[in-house]
């Protein structure tokens, strides 16, 4: 019983130390803010997802065309808009476009 209680006490102390560790390591409250994506970052992430989706769709379209699941006519009809979408997302992700969004965000 005594051994069990000692072990339980050791376990409790270890648990408390683990939980308190972030406060013990950084007693100062100076950098205690949990970062959160701002509007610009959310927009950038959304564009990056859109770009990846468009590039993936292009890759799938090429593959489906090569394996005969898409006819030449369908391929020609679908590839243009997909390339445009990918290009738009890539352009919007360029640093200059990002800066423009930031300025618009601030002024707006």
């Amino acid at each position: 019983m005594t051994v069990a209680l000692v072990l339980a006490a050791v376990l409790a102390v270890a648990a408390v130390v683990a939980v308190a560790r972030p406060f013990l390591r950084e007693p100062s409250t100076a950098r205690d803010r949990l970062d959160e994506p701002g509007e610009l970052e959310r927009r950038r992430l959304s564009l990056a997802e859109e770009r990846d989706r468009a590039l993936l769709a292009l890759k799938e379209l090429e593959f489906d065309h090569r394996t005969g699941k898409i006819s030449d006519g369908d391929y020609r009809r679908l590839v243009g808009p997909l390339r445009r979408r990918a290009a738009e997302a890539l352009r919007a992700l360029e640093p200059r476009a990002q800066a423009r969004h930031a300025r618009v965000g601030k002024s707006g």
Partner: protein
Amino acid sequence: MAALGRAALLLSLGLVAYALVGGSLAAWKRKRRLALSAQNALIAAFGTTLVAAAVLWIALARRDLSFVYVAQHISRSLPLGYTLSAFWGGQEGSLLLWLLVLTGYSALAVWLNRRSPELVAWTVPVLGGVAVFFAFMLCFVSTPFATAPAPADGAGMDPALQNPYMLAHPPMLYLGYVGLTIPFAFAMGALLARRTDERWIVATRRWTLAAWTFLGVGQLLGAHWAYVEIGWGGYYAWDPVENAALMPWLAATAFLHSVMIQEKRGMLKVWNVVLVALAFCLSLFGTFLTRSGVINSIHSFTKSPLGGWFLGFIVVVVVFSVALIYLRLPLLRARTKLESLVSREATFLYNNLLLVALALTILWGVVYPLLTQAVNGTTRSVSKPYYDFFLHSFGLPLLLLMGIGPLVAWRRASLRALGKTFAVPAAFSVVTGVVLLALGFGSSVPGLLAYTFSAFVAASIVLEFVRGRRAAGSIFRLVGRNRRRYGGYVVHAAVVLLAIGIAGSSAYQTIREQSLKPGQSMRAAGYTLTYESLGTRQLQNAQQTSATISVTRGGSHVATLHPGKSWFPVEQSSSNDVSIYHDPRSLGDVYTIADGIARNGTLDLKVLVKPLVNLVWAAGFVFVFGALVAMWPDAVEQRRLVERYAAVPV
């Protein structure tokens, strides 16, 4: 030592409660150190739960009968392997296993995302909330650490559980059930944080696949256990607890397909969070069915006080999920629409509807006895014909869709292109169907359809690999660059094997029963079985009586079988010991059951000849292989994702 177990569980409860409350506060008030502290609490809870689990395992290994749980579930003569497996053989132990796996998974998920505190900020309190329920139950409602003066011997273990499959089947199912908590927590965390990007999907993709794989393997292990141990000649009886594992698996299967549409097209965001919540709620419901004893089942434990608590918790989870999804609906609207009803995404949608419809009809069959009891006061239940009807109505179209989907292009497909891709699989399946019909397989329409559709799916999978290899240059490059797609096709091949095995062993099986005296023979589907003698032998904790049966085919001896019965004196219970000949030529089994053994040596022998049944078990290996291919990390994709999330404080 029981005091240490109790203390460790109380600590676990305190830690997960802290993760819930502290984590919520941290996410709400944006407190970084408090968020990290809540994460540490979740990781520490795994440590304390591990200590509690170790205490129970040590008590079992030492056969310490002063633990009430140990005394109720083992005997001194029980072999050590089964003694240790008693950990999950009873209600309190299996709840502890739930908490152990949950805290272990939570700790791993938090650790893997330690550089993304924002991503897990709201996930930690959700995981903590689920863990609080189980820790509370273990501390105050159903503790495995109750003690009493030790009896001379324990009550022993149900003979049906004394089977090697019981060492792996329940833990495997639990790894699956509990694993579904992780995608649920990440999805709800994303909704709480008002995030609609795909990070929760990226973070949980492998978790979902792993949980789904464990659940699938767990069910197959359970089916094989039922086949070799229960002794009725089948492997799935639509038992409520079997159904309880099938339902979340079906919901998770639907999610694994529909999430691809969100990733590729940005559609079905609402549907995906609904499926994740449904899969998790069904896994809780499965645990409720097993633990509460509300429905008679070979798996469920006796009536327990857990039912009300579990039902209450399920209601809380359902209300929380529905309310949160409803509140976030405006954020989840898709910007793109389905372009054509003949496209890959449309076939995924049809597959989703069928999978969910099948899951819900099974759910209705499971809860029907509870509802009739509540409304009329008399229990009425649905039986095999109900489930078979819906399995045929939804399962066969699903099988066919599995072959159609890969042949259809994303976005839209023209009739001309469809005709080109469908020609070979369609011709192959029609020829297969006609040949089978000519061979007499028309005796079962569902069986014939299952074989024909399986031929279609198999041909479409082979064609996909052939055309893909031609386009990519080599099979390794093809699979290496498209692991999820081709891993998925391998899983589809496993389902084809499963469908053929199930159709063969159920629709075309032969059953014969006969009373035999030593020296007499009986015939079944081309086999002759001769009863030679009867013998008894003493096992470690049972006395076994078994017959010796000589099996011949075409005049040649092929096997000697020993069906019989075992008597377990401590448990005051007997078990059927079936004996099986696996025929490598037909991939089927000759399955023998000693239904009755009279004092004068007369044997009531039941023989089932089950063609192709071994494909069901072979499907398990193919399934695991396909899942591993799909789960294997893709370096190119990893680089793309790292670049995508590089500038975002996640």
